């Protein structure tokens, strides 16, 4: 039986690369302990139901932002909840305006592995006329130095929709950003 010897490394940063190359790596720590590393992949597709949140995601496909309003206390949620977080009563769907303001913001230069290729991207919490709570979204078509709390923003919708919260994003309202030269 011929067996290719495992590559030994004492650099932890090499382990991942070595596993990808040959399926295993033998790491030796500073005390001389041998540690056998292997690849252990894990891929799964969930059959994810939006359940009671379904109308919100169908609404995005029609270019609508749907919030919910408590039938009992009228509290209006910009991120929908089918029952009120204050009184527990059922809520009703209400359409929110497509214009709002930045309540807070950031620009992510790193992110989870799934989103690394999209960096840098802007996250904003948006406040709406007629709503008591906020909605998290992306702010596009502007950079870190353009954004400020209170900035007016407008909704945009993906066409065709992917039935994800990413079907909705915001851009600066017309006239908010200074004219760019060139």
């Amino acid at each position, binding site marked *: 039986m011929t067996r290719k010897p495992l590559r030994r490394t004492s650099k*932890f940063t090499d382990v*991942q690369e070595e596993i990808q190359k040959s399926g295993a790596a033998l*790491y030796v*720590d500073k*005390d001389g302990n041998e540690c056998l*590393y292997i690849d*252990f992949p*894990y891929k799964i597709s969930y059959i*994810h139901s*939006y359940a009671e*949140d379904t109308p919100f995601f169908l609404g995005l496909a029609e270019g609508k932002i749907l919030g919910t309003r408590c039938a*009992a*206390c*009228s*509290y*209006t949620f*910009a*991120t929908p*909840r089918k029952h*009120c*977080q*204050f*009184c*527990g009563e059922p809520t009703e769907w209400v359409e929110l305006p497509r214009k709002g303001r930045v*309540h*807070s*913001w*950031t*620009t*992510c*230069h*790193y*992110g*989870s*592995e*799934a*989103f*690394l290729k*999209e960096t840098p*991207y802007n*996250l*904003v*919490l948006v*406040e*709406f*006329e*007629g*709503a*008591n*709570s*906020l*909605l*998290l979204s*992306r702010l596009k078509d502007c950079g*870190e130095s353009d954004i*400020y*709390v209170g900035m007016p923003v407008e909704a945009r919708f993906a066409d065709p929709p992917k039935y*994800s*919260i*990413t079907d909705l994003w915001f851009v600066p309202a017309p006239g908010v950003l200074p004219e760019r030269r060139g």
Partner: protein
Amino acid sequence: MAPIAGPDLASSWARRGIPLPEGLGGSETEPEQDNRYDPPNLSGRQLRCCMSPSGPKASRRRDVFSGTPTPSSPSRPGRRVYMVSGGVTKFAKAHPAMDFRLMCKKAFDAAREEVPNLTLDMIDGTRVSYFSDHFSRQLKAGSMVQDYLGLNPRGSVRIEWGGATGGECFQAAYEAVASGRMDTCLAVGYETMSRVATWKGNEFIALASDVNYDFPLGGFYTGYYALMVIRHIYEYLRRTKFAHIRDEREAQRQAIAYGTRVMAKVSVKNHRNALYNPYAQYPKNIDIEGVLKSEMVSYPLTREQICTMSDGSAAVILCSEERAKELTDRPVLVKGVGCGTDTMRLADRPFGKVLLMPHEKVSDYESLKYPGVHSFRAGRSAGLEAYRHAGITDPVKELDFIELHDAYSSSEIQTYEDLGLCKYGEGYDFVERGDAFLKNIDYGFEVPRAGTIPVNPSGGLIACGHPVGATGLMQAVFAFWQLQGTIAQHFGSDKLQIPNARRGAIHSHAGTGSSVTVSILEAVRK
């Protein structure tokens, strides 16, 4: 009804025999509307209290349960609980030669070494904490820890509560002993975060945000904390120190620049404290410029203001009074425990009234909408409950130090306010005054009031690392050594020993502040 934001904590505390100090809830006057920039709809409605106990449902309940009312008592029912020992592994980027079972064994053995009279037979059961099943891809890992430690067939349960997993584990073990169910309970926790690449690890952590509305947008916890601190700076710096600047964008830029510089001081404090903590993963003789110039991760949070991924384990042994006497002459009393929660989604946070500390007044916060996304109501709620349990009315005077969940330099400042070390809005000044710094460490800048109430003398999460399931227990171990006066023995130097430390708090924090625990530990003097 006292205007306490959100659920009726006052009656919950009253029912459980926790006295309400004067001033809690304040007066019943509605706060006045202010004329500053404010989202019109967010300010219009205060937190509603639709859960009035005087409703028809409540009276029906009273009819059914018409027993003897619970007498009000100054402290909680239940037995006194003592910490008798603790152990930690070094926190590291990776421990390739130890899996989670061996790490837990090492932490457990370190704890056992200091209480030689403790036999395995004395341990009545365990609480095992780890945050994510994804990191080791091993379900029922808690059972494997119990198994490896040789503690079968005793009772054990796994504790998971996001970033506060370790703090919750501590309190679960406390409850097991306080209730009389156990005389000795081991709380042991770990995380092995090196088993996946850093950015995949960030993805696992981000799955602890709503996967319908938050995660797909670029789920990233540093991003969430950046959103929170930008608003914190807006509320508390733009509107005060920078109110004189007329141009809105310029004012906000200057406020952020100032705020991040103050945040950098917190990062310097924790990194430099950790130079004297041999268990810390990431001690560093860094300065303010070094923090600010490190890589931008999520504006305005740079790399050096964020805790790291870690491998590590920590173990805590809690006992009844009788058992503690058999094991040690230097026990530490668990004087109070508290836990609070808030909405999972930042976007759902209410804009209501401040939960007041005993030393605060309604008039302190007339125009503040609380908690919004800038403060942690769960932290304040946990602090209030723990202080009340411990009989603390002024934490700065009555605590000697705090081990605080500084996953970000920003959240340490936000938490100073939540825990009542200063008023809401004074967090940045509190840093500048230096109260949270140690006296005998050189930080490279002036800290006029150093030593008032040191926060994270160990170096905190930013410098010690954050192996999630172990972190809250690590804090308990460091606090225990402070209160025993054994820092020199454990760290090899007394540089971080707070002289005559009598009482300390540990604070463990999850999600975007969706759950927080605070526990108060007290030295027992002969």
